[in-house]
């Protein structure tokens, strides 16, 4: 009797140890934690992109692992990182320890993602970043591969390349304006929200624009949540600027565009304006944001064969154009492919498969570099430049750049009131 008890006890302990230490073996579904600020557009993008991918995969029968096919189950994790970084760390802890997610996708604010990355790495969870652009996140992979190899970034492109595209767009507009309006030397007003991420862009712009043959007439740094920039716009107009080089990620992007269009400031607005990437921008500015040009990730052009179908499905389903955080769509597909190739949920077996990724994604060809960052460049992911033209956010770049033109791209249009101002 005692012996039988002993056997049962050993079996119970064994079952307990196995179920704790090797949860993947017992998995009957693949749990992916989608982490982001869910009350905000960025979090919605995370969730929507991942939802579309999971539905597509599950419709085909799930992820094939051996003889079994496992469905993907998404877990929505609200990081609230817009308002509180500590909330983000709690959220990721919750996802890992309570929801027992196998993988994580998402993240938005660099400050929050850096902390979340550490927690995910400590728990050996593959975490695919789909929101934060800071180079440090991927440099860590190179610095300490064994610890950070579970981190990958799908979107956006590294901020160094974002800046590069930013300057390409500025150069393109400067060239068009100089030619069409006969301006001998383009004058640029730099307007960047006062945020840490914008500081290097301002510094580089001040240094590089003279080298690009342009004159910097001033730098304005409004608060990211400024509700009125008419004073700044009046000062810019007085400075005689031809182009306003914008760097906005927050609500000031709407305020600026709205008042710029309303006052018909005779200078073209070019640069980063995250709010202008969204369909809601048109309504939020009452159409006054017309002709705003911004860097973007998605546009309804043939970046790859998958882009337009994805764009249309997304818009039909969620009544909104995909923003860059909707790159979770790619992240979930990449994960599913890697799991099938590894035939396991063991992260150490999946990482090498992910490193070999070469996928024609919805925003370009996705290949990871040695730091597990998405590769930028012609024939890879390039990002796009989109300009609001009479209610539609049109792709205006790349257009004959390094031999690249995405089908459906249209030429940049100088705002008519700017043209009128120079014709007088």
């Amino acid at each position, binding site marked *: 009797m005692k012996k039988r008890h002993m056997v049962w006890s050993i079996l119970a302990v064994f079952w307990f140890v196995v179920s704790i230490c090797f949860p993947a073996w017992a998995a009957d579904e693949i749990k992916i934690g989608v982490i982001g600020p869910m009350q905000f557009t960025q979090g919605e993008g995370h969730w929507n992109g991942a939802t579309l991918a999971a539905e597509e995969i599950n419709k085909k029968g799930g992820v094939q692992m051996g003889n079994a096919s496992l469905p993907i189950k998404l877990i929505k994790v609200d990081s609230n990182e817009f308002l509180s970084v500590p909330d983000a760390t709690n959220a990721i802890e919750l996802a890992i320890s309570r929801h027992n997610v196998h993988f994580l996708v998402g993240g938005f604010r660099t400050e929050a993602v850096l902390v979340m990355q550490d927690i995910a790495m400590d728990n050996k969870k593959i975490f695919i970043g789909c929101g934060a652009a800071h180079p440090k996140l991927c440099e860590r992979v190179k610095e300490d591969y064994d610890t950070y190899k579970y981190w990958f970034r799908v979107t956006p492109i590294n901020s160094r390349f974002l800046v590069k595209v930013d300057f390409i767009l500025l150069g393109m507009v400067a060239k068009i304006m100089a030619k069409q309006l006969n301006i001998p030397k383009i004058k640029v007003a730099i307007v960047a929200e006062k945020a840490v991420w914008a500081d290097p862009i301002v510094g580089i712009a001040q240094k590089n624009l003279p080298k690009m043959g342009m004159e910097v007439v001033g730098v*304005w740094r409004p*608060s990211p949540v400024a509700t009125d920039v*008419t004073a700044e716009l009046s000062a810019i*107009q007085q400075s005689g600027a031809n182009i306003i080089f914008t760097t906005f990620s927050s609500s000031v992007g709407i305020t600026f565009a*709205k008042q710029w269009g309303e006052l018909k400031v005779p200078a073209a607005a070019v640069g980063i304006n995250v709010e202008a990437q969204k369909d809601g921008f048109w309504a939020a500015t*009452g*159409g006054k944001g017309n002709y705003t040009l911004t860097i973007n990730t998605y546009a309804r052009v043939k970046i790859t064969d998958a882009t337009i179908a994805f764009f249309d499905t997304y818009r039909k389903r969620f009544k909104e154009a995909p923003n860059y955080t909707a790159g979770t769509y790619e992240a979930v597909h990449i994960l599913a492919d890697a799991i099938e190739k590894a035939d396991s949920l063991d992260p150490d077996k999946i990482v090498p498969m992910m490193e070999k990724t070469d996928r024609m994604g919805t925003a370009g060809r996705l290949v990871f570099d040695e730091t597990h960052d998405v590769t930028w460049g012609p024939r890879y992911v390039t990002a796009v430049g989109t300009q609001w033209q009479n209610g539609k956010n049109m792709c205006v770049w790349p257009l004959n750049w390094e031999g690249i033109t995405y089908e459906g791209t249209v030429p940049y249009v100088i705002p008519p009131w700017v043209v009128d101002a120079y014709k007088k």
Partner: protein
Amino acid sequence: MIQNIVINGLINGSIYALLAIGFSLIFGVARIVNIAHTAFYMLAAYFIYVGFQYLGMSPYVAMPLAVLAVGVLAIICYKLFIDPIREHEAAVLIATIALAMVIQEALLIGFGGHYLGVPPLIQGYAEIVGVKVTYQHLLALTVALMALFGSWLFLMKTKLGLALRATAQDREVANLMGMNEARVAMLTMGISAMIAAIAGAIVVPLFVLDPHMWMHPLIMMLAIVVLGGLGSMKGSFVGAYIMAFAEVLVVFMVPMGSFLKGSVALSIMIVVLLIRPEGLFGIAFEEER
């Protein structure tokens, strides 16, 4: 540049003045530090957005309705959350913070963190002494000045205004004179929230709506009423224009530091308080009492 500073300062100052006067009114009359004051301002802006965007109302209809709705809501909030604890000033302060947070979170749940907007009532701009000013800004300035004048008329020339001022002067004596002090406080809550709602209605076509838009005006409003002298309407009026002009001056004089405009305005408040701790009109206000 001077023209720009004058015009922008006048517009911003008028909006701040509207907010600060409503806040001063409820503090002066009922000794309620209503932190939710700017949340009512935000609520009015959202009501107008809903009326315009979802119910297809004309903004001209949505605006007065929103002002009225906010007034009624403020009275309900007063009866539910403030009246039972009115004698405990610290508890009232905390209750109004909680109320503001509840409004913020409710809007966050209802509308998400999206930035929303309402188109201007009048399109285009005018050039005044070489400065481009949108018609909407001019309308905002006109309505704000009219609202300020209306508030003054109401307080000085009406029976209810007299009751409010009497209660502000001395609650106990007002009570002894047969005035229902509790009722006056409740009405004041509604009126002050409606003044905040008017400010919300004025800014809704100019600003971007989001569930945190009440924070910055709250800080500025608190600074203005402290600068002007707590509870002093005249002080709030003058303080609002001082703060607004300080902000605009920073933008024009130090473009690289335009994000500092709020801090500079608050620093001015600190300097004034160091020299005159009771605020600009604090003594006059105390004498009135």
